[in-house]
């Protein structure tokens, strides 16, 4: 069984994001970048399936300019077998990303495609769903458990009311939620080994896809700041304030 994992290079989740002074975007100059946490969970799940003997090959794909090879190397160090970077300087919209991945899937014919449910920069939560639609294959988003039985996939999803379990026929697309697994740290020997694993570069033209961006960023502003209120000295004072000042309880 072959698994395709799509990953994205994003701002490290520990970095405090700041809006540029001219409000055109957030400031990403000299900011630490990392593998998107949800993508990392997707890679980890693929590696676990390989370790269980269920999967035989893991291909990891990213779309972007040269620096995103760092994140592909990270995924290789975690246990992916080979990597593909689709080279572009344009910031693609989600539909373009899904179209690129669909082309890769047509060539590679994976049985399972794993993606993070969203990236922590644009917070879109849509690429997996779009990819599944373009391939006309079933989807299980927000996965917290993935089991494989023959050509059937049993996925438990985190939904608003609790948990929902679906059966999907492979090939299928699964997007990962936080509690699917806890990704490992890459060991030093594996980081060294990852440098020798194959990393191929293709252009969107090679795949017959054009990359566009139909969503124009007009401006970015910092969220309305909440200023700290007051400290109360006792429960009695708190109740008094809530009743008479804030008037939110009877």
């Amino acid at each position, binding site marked *: 069984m072959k698994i395709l994992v799509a990953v994205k290079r994003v701002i490290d989740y520990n970095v405090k994001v700041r809006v540029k002074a001219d409000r055109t975007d957030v400031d990403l100059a000299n900011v630490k970048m990392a593998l998107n946490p949800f993508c990392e969970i997707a890679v980890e799940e693929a590696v676990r399936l390989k370790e269980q003997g269920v999967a035989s090959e893991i291909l990891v794909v990213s779309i972007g300019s040269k620096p995103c090879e760092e994140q592909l190397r990270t995924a290789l160090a975690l246990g992916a077998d080979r990597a593909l970077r689709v080279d572009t300087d344009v910031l693609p919209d989600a539909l373009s990303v899904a179209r690129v991945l669909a082309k890769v899937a047509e060539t590679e014919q994976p049985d399972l495609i794993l993606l993070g449910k969203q990236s922590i920069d644009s917070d*879109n*939560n849509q690429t997996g769903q779009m990819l*599944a639609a373009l391939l006309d294959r079933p989807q299980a988003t927000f996965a917290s458990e993935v089991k494989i039985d023959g050509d059937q996939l049993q996925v438990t999803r985190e939904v*608003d009311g609790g948990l929902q379990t679906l059966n999907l026929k492979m090939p299928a697309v699964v997007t990962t939620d936080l509690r699917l697994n806890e990704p490992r740290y890459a060991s030093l020997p594996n980081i060294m080994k990852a440098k020798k694993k194959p990393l191929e570069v293709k252009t969107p033209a090679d795949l017959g896809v054009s990359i566009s961006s139909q969503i124009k960023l007009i*401006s970015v502003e910092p969220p309305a700041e909440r200023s700290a209120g007051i400290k109360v000295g006792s429960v009695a004072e708190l109740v008094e304030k809530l009743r008479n000042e804030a008037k939110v*309880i009877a």
Partner: protein
Amino acid sequence: MSILILAEHDNQTLKPVTLNVLAAAGEIGGDITLLVAGHGCQAVAEQAAQAAGVSRVLLADAPAYAHQLAENVSKLLLNLADDYEHILAAATTTGKNILPRVAALLGVNTLTDVLGVESPKRFKRAIYAGNAIATVEIDEPKVVMTIRGTAFDPVAATGHNASITQLDQVYESDDVSFRHEALAASDRPELTAARIVVSGGRGLGNGENFDLLYQMADKLGAAVGASRAAVDAGYVPNDMQVGQTGKMVAPELYIAVGISGAIQHLAGMKDSKVIVAINKDEEAPIFQVADYGLVADLFDAVPELQASL
């Protein structure tokens, strides 16, 4: 202009968040059609017909739609899409699952989790876990988007009487089937619609101690939420998580108990009108957003607070 909204429901009742989506649609402007796709959901269609601003209700009632599987509902929406310029749903796990699939079938992009309407093509949405608010303009023939309910005040649930039209198209994929679900049964209000939310964090120490919060919540008529730390520690189930990757809430009163205030959590609750924080660590970041902070041991403060309500 015409707007199609996918109604949020559980086959029995229309979820209140649909009223917030209707408010967003009202800001875009245009004739509004509400689609109720489900099974045995006639009652939902009747409730939907009463909501303010709805011109007509489309009812697709079939077993294939019982669990709102994206594969089936997206094809239904695709089939209806010709007549509409905007297709909306709530940014719930259902809406987020289905709408991007519809958009891709239509060959357009999606705007997710929209929290402001500037014009029919220009919207505001949060990026970087709510650390920045982007104004974006979408250049697509159809605008497909999910709406953050708490960002819009709901329209009236009753007083209207729209027509209900039955749809007979049934789309059913052979590649996916519903197996089972474990949904939390609770008499408390839903987290995203509650007027008061009481949330607990790692400070509670274990799942049993959440009883303290349940008791207080029942006295206040409040919903109970949790931080990601409390969910990850296994104290409470995932559907209680408030934050960037959990639920977005904006109640009139939010009481954070034993929650330090990680940025992921703040992203999910900082639009609450009044925030109360109870924490024994006076350096906890939650105090920087709290209107009223009480530095105290929650195991003393919560029972005392409950007794005085």
